[in-house]
């Protein structure tokens, strides 16, 4: 990426310690507009901690995070969401017994207009259902017939679809996806990869965490290799092979000097 384009989301020297374990060790991170950035790394490299720091699920001990050049200090996922950063967690963070519409609007429910909404907090169920259906339609997910059916009655791929649709519908700046294809079959993985392309086509930058190299190399514009709690290097998928990427992230091979962070 050329230097004149400013990153949407930028982190410098972030540190997160859990007791004696240092999960993030002065890690850097850059996400540029409109790109799909894959984050890869071995187990325990600190990928999850990095994502949690960026999405407000954990508070960092040191370092700075900037969104559109403005410093941000998230202390809860709500802050990140309000700032326009949406996250699709690996466990999806859906409430299984609640409906698709309820889940899509969880934590940001719409109130009715008028007195009932203002003074009695009455929710506008109809409007939420309409919008939820619209968002699912936009992403071609209308194999889901009933917007009021409980999420637990959906298949794994459909649940993933709901979670992605929720993130895409409300994320105004960045969408983060943690292992979106890890639990899915071949066909459903394909659907989710297409969803990622759809979201990207709207100009939304995406952070994709994945262990699946073929998926990473297919959709990513750049790959951020995380190792031992920090960014080792960023590479372009066209310049390196999958085995190179695996070699970097496992430490079998030194990272290319010009790309080293």
């Amino acid at each position, binding site marked *: 990426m050329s230097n004149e384009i400013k990153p949407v989301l930028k982190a410098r020297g972030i540190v997160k310690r859990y007791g004696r374990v240092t999960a993030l060790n002065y890690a850097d991170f850059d996400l540029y507009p409109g790109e799909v950035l894959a984050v890869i790394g071995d187990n325990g490299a600190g990928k999850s901690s990095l994502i949690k720091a960026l999405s407000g699920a954990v508070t960092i001990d040191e370092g700075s995070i900037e969104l559109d050049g403005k410093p941000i200090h998230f202390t809860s996922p709500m802050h990140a969401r309000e700032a326009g950063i949406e996250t699709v967690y690996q466990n999806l963070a859906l*409430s299984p*017994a609640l409906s698709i519409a309820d889940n899509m609007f969880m934590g940001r429910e719409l109130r009715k207009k008028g007195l009932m909404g203002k003074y009695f907090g009455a*929710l506008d169920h109809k409007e939420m259902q309409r919008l939820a259906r619209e968002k699912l339609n936009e992403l071609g997910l209308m194999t889901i017939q009933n917007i009021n059916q409980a999420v637990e009655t959906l298949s794994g791929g459909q649940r993933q679809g709901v979670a992605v649709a929720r993130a895409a519908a409300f994320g105004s700046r960045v969408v983060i996806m943690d292992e979106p294809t890890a639990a899915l079959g071949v*066909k459903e993985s394909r659907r989710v990869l297409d969803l990622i392309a759809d979201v990207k086509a709207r100009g939304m930058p995406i952070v994709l965490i994945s262990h699946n190299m073929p998926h990473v190399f297919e959709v990513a514009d750049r790959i951020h290799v995380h190792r031992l709690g920090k960014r080792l290097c960023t590479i372009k998928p066209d310049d390196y092979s999958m085995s190179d990427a695996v070699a970097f992230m496992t430490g079998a091979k030194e990272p290319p000097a010009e790309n080293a962070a």
Partner: protein
Amino acid sequence: MSETPKSSRQKQDFEHALESSDSSVAQFEHKHRSLFDSVQHFLHGNPTMVPVIVLIFSIIIFGFVAGSKFFSPFNLSLIMQQVSIIGILAAAQSLVILTAGIDLSVGAIMVLMSVIMGQLAVTIGIPAPIAIVIGCIGGICAGALNGFLVTRIKLPPFIVTLGTWNIFFALNLWLSGAQSIRSQTLDEIAPLLKFFGESIALGGARITYGSILMLLIFGVLWYILNHTSWGRHVYAIGDDKEAAELSGIRTNRTLIMVYGLAGLVCAIGAWASIGRVGSVSPQSFQEANLQSITAVVIGGISLFGGRGSIIGPLIGALIVGVFNSGLRLAGVDVLWQVFAIGWLTIIAVAIDQWIRKVSS
């Protein structure tokens, strides 16, 4: 399907097999459901239908067994009256159980607050309305204490409320000196405390204000749980607390509010209980907490949280009332009423487990 990825990024070889495959993804299999499956799915979507069906059947059966006495307006209004206090406590209990917790202290909070209201109004001589308000604030504080211990000290709700149950009961005996405040004393000094014991006659029925209060409480809670954000958050927390937190819900704050609201409902129940009993009795309603759990469970609210309608426990309390009334009118010994309620509770939980399996 969206546009294909850039030419440099190829799909995996094995995925080309997908092109000739069925392009529909993750659709429902519309396999033929047996009647049994259909019932299970229906109940999964409408968990309150179980207690409703049980209530209707028990009314029909006891109507036959006990005869026309059972259907007299007087008897029906009496059932309402008898279940009103347990019903109100069950409403409070439901809030906590919906969050996958349990509140063993609801009965103790209620009796303690009735003693506080009574002592303030009668012994100290504070005007009754102020005594009632202080009692209600006390209820909120007692509930919030439970909530604080559950969320901040991170103790299991069962242990916390088992402890506070005893603590509140001891405070109640201390404040009251284990003495009741008699009905005549209340009439002289603070008749307002007995307000919910008064009734309106409607045909042969005697509907107490306490019965109406119970229905009102359920109505308000139904609205809160189904039509406000806070209510949806309560369900989400009971369903999956971690997911709720990641969705941006401040779960601990909401939980403390749940316990506090339950405490407030108990305190309102305390006022109603004074009217129901006619006196302030520190020894009354000793089994109320367990009876409230029974009503909630029979009402189809899952003990695992997040499932069930607040209307269920109202029906559950009515079922218990109908059983007790019907068996009594049929001349059956009281011990068999308890026996029947015991089985009903076990069956209710078994049905809940069966319904929950629908998803797996």
